């Protein structure tokens, strides 16, 4: 199934399928707990804060900041050649997710840089990657 030309792809299950379906429609969504209002990622069977199983999807702005990042100078998978940036993105609404920073040179990525989601289609999936919110560094 995974050969050298196919990048690793999401493996949706019953819990994560709605997240990937929303991405395909260009919406980034997180899980919102109906008991304690905690917003969380990744999707799961219960709220990791209060264990309530009552939750609803909530679409978020797709804006956030780079909490930290790793600049890959080694190619681990032939379909994902170096250099590339893996970042831990902290969304403005709170939840964090691992993604890539694209749309700028890898050397330009900084911690705390403001970013916005950019949906990219890869082999039938739509991945939420992130790009700098402004290239000039102005606040927005």
């Amino acid at each position: 199934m995974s050969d050298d030309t196919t990048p690793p792809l999401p493996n949706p299950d019953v819990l994560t399928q709605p997240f990937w379906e929303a991405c395909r429609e260009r919406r980034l969504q997180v899980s919102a707990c109906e008991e304690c209002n905690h917003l969380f990622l990744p999707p799961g069977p219960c709220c990791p804060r209060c264990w309530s199983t009552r939750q609803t999807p909530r679409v978020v702005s797709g804006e956030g900041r780079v909490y930290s990042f790793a600049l890959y100078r080694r190619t681990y998978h032939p379909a994902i050649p170096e250099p590339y940036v893996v970042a831990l993105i902290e969304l403005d609404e709170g939840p964090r997710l691992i993604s890539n920073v694209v749309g700028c040179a890898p050397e330009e990525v900084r911690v705390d840089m403001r970013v916005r989601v950019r949906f990219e289609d890869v082999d039938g999936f739509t991945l939420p990657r992130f790009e700098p919110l402004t290239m000039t560094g102005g606040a927005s």
Partner: protein
Amino acid sequence: MSRRAVITGVGHTAFGRSTDRSVSELETEAALSAVEDAGVSPSEVDGLLSDPGAMQGVLDGITPHYLRLGAQLGLDPDYTGSEILGGAGSVAVVERAVLAIEAGLCTTCLCIYADSTTSVKSAYRYGRGDDAVYGFFGAVGLHALAARRHMHLYGTKPEQLGEVAIAARAHAARTPHAQKRRPIEMQEYLSSDPIVEPLRKLDCCLVSNGAAAVLVTTEERARDLRRPAVQILGHAQAHSLCTQAAPEHFERLPAARCGPRALGQAGLGPRDVDVALLYDCFTIVVLLQLEDYGFCKRGEAGPFVEGGRIAPGGELPVNPSGGLLAEGYGGGMLHVVEAVRQLRGEAGERQIPEASVALVSGHGLGMNTHATLVLGR
């Protein structure tokens, strides 16, 4: 009647990249050397705990590691098991042996770490679920996030990570069995190939084939054995399982929780530690632990390691045998072995004078698991 557990024997194979020996042979050699070191008969071993390295894994098909290992050593123990705590596993199995012995479940427990590149299984990949989609592979990428965060928060410099790598090699130069004994200087560190920035090749632990073993028994049984018993002064674990969802996951290790508990059981603080055996899969993990165990204030580990403070002859020697960065990848069990040798005064050229308290740590997976042992004479 309360029973106290002590460490009475240690042993290991050579560590290196050579692949001509099977992991089974390595395990057997380590087991024999620990039993011989203690001076007990193999027939006395009634407990078997194992930390199989990531390459061989805890399961071979449906066969757990302890089952294969126990059959190979002809054991029908009263207590057995294998840990799956990544790099915290070796320290955790020694702790588990202590708990089992003190609870009366067994009397003489063999703890073994072993791994070999000849036993690599396809599962040996760090792509975790959907994060692999973004190319988030390898333990190095995870630790690069922590290193970058530390640099951002505290101004930590590459040269300060370099101090950790340089100290490890300087220690290993005094360790006859170490895998990388050639000392390095800062220029060589700085020109080392980037792997996942900000981490370079010399920030990363070695890949090794080898096995190490520790024998734990009762204080009473150890009394007439030939080696001085090493005391268990404290032990604790703490874990951070939520990874990126945990607020401080890439800034602080669970060591900040279990370190004070383990030292507190001994009535000790970080200043009482003569030698620190800190799990060092990457240089940044040493910096984080220096802060989390309270050897320095949070954010100050970079300046703390400058001037050779953790190097041979420094104020706080860290990993005097060279650790995972230079001695060999011993899964954390070699750290326990070295602590025992230092406390028994058997470390030769690298002996820390009058070492009487050793702190040993294990750190594993995606910075998720942590275990601490405080050992004494």
